[in-house]
């Protein structure tokens, strides 16, 4: 057991010997919780009984946090990123066809390669294919509502789907969710694990949604709103929306003797 302070290290070299970088322990940048919704947000009623009240214990990243599951193409099927085809039974799903694309980046602006992105959503009528969803909008026999993709070497991902519909929910008596797609992202370490939602530019329900307005920072909220991207659309076929996702930055870590991300 050695409690001595480590020697000062040269930030340019990023080598473990003789000067391992101070940016070389693989820990993630401290999460800025002012960008995130607080656990206890009474306007979103479900959070009231489900929010811890004790202070979180601050934990310096160890190998348990800087590592995380590794996924590969073997985990995915060929239609996983095509929600128009991956549950089609006897035709196309009903709704406005869209492409969603973007990059998974970290806080230093680097693409996060080979990371798993999963997404799920209601159908064009605002109904989820879930045995607990009883909203009166019809189930679409040709639409499952979920998919997944691996980012490429630059962190880029894309998928095709139909635009989800808004739907009512039991928060206030007359609460409605804006159209949205849920995203789950892994990153390279378990401490980067993130679930978020993408919203659509111009949706009038955005400013009145009790879930979306739990985010205290207006810029952080705006970054969840995907703009229309006509350049990426397919003429006479699909509109496109661009959605970049930022995960926590990381001090350099070493993969098989090669410095990652420098």
């Amino acid at each position, binding site marked *: 057991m050695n409690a001595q302070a480590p020697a000062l290290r040269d930030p340019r070299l990023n080598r473990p010997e003789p000067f391992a970088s101070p940016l070389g322990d693989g820990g993630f940048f401290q999460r800025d919780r002012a960008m995130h919704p607080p656990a206890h947000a009474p306007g979103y009623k479900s959070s009231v009984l489900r929010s811890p009240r004790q202070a979180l214990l601050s934990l310096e990243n160890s190998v*348990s946090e800087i590592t995380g599951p590794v996924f590969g193409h073997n985990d995915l099927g060929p239609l996983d990123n095509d929600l128009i085809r991956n549950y089609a039974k006897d035709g196309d799903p009903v709704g406005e066809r869209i492409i969603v694309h973007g990059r998974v980046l970290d806080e230093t602006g680097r693409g996060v390669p080979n990371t798993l992105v999963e997404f799920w959503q209601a159908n064009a009528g605002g109904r989820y294919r879930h045995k607990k969803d009883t909203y009166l909008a019809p189930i679409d026999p040709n639409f499952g509502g979920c998919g997944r993709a691996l980012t490429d070497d630059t962190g880029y991902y894309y998928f095709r789907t139909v635009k989800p519909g808004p739907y009512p929910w039991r928060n206030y008596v007359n609460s409605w969710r804006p159209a949205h797609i849920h995203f789950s992202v892994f990153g390279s370490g378990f401490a980067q694990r993130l679930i978020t939602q993408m919203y659509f530019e111009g949706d009038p329900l955005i400013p009145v949604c009790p879930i979306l307005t739990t985010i205290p920072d207006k810029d952080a909220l705006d970054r969840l709103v995907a703009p229309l991207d006509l350049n990426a659309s397919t003429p006479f076929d699909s509109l496109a929306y661009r959605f970049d996702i930022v995960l926590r930055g990381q001090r350099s870590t070493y993969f098989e003797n090669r410095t990652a991300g420098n």
Partner: protein
Amino acid sequence: MPQPLNYLKETASQTAGPYVHIGLIPAMAGFDIFEKNFSNVLVTPNTQGERIVLEGKVLDGSGSPLRDVLLEIWQANAAGRYNHPADRSAGAPDQDFRGWGRGGSDFDSGLVTFETIKPGAIIDKMGRKCAPHVNVWIVARGINIGLNTRLYFSDEEAANAADPVLNLIEQSARRATLIAKRTERAGKVVYSFTINLQGPEETVFFDV
């Protein structure tokens, strides 16, 4: 004005609910879509280590089990090594153990189970031995940002007493909220846990 740092900001978290199963465990939502599904079974016949079942529930501030919660676990193999290139510790890799699992709670009982192996002790970057533990991440409707905690094992008393993370918990009584209790049932080793989101037994959650 000094130079701008130009860091990007992390994307804001949003709740996973109400129907997190659709995307992440669609079989629980009531339909079959993917050729390959992720699951709560981490072991294959070739995985090294002692087979265990982790079984528990997450309780809200009223003491009711969350019946729509999703847990992910991440753990080292039986030799104390994570299946990830950033773990360069001495423990031997096990190609037959990814170390990650995902499970939803039963819609009636609220029980979440994992079939896995007991992890080995890991060595932290200060060279200290850490008690065997499983990292847990919790999302559900009403949880605005995923919660991080750990499970330790009740039959590792000496290792737990020396564990640097458990010892960070100033209120020693709260350390017990992270200990899963070992029992044997029908020939299986079961570690039971309860995660309390609020109340006098509130689980210790981490800002990692």
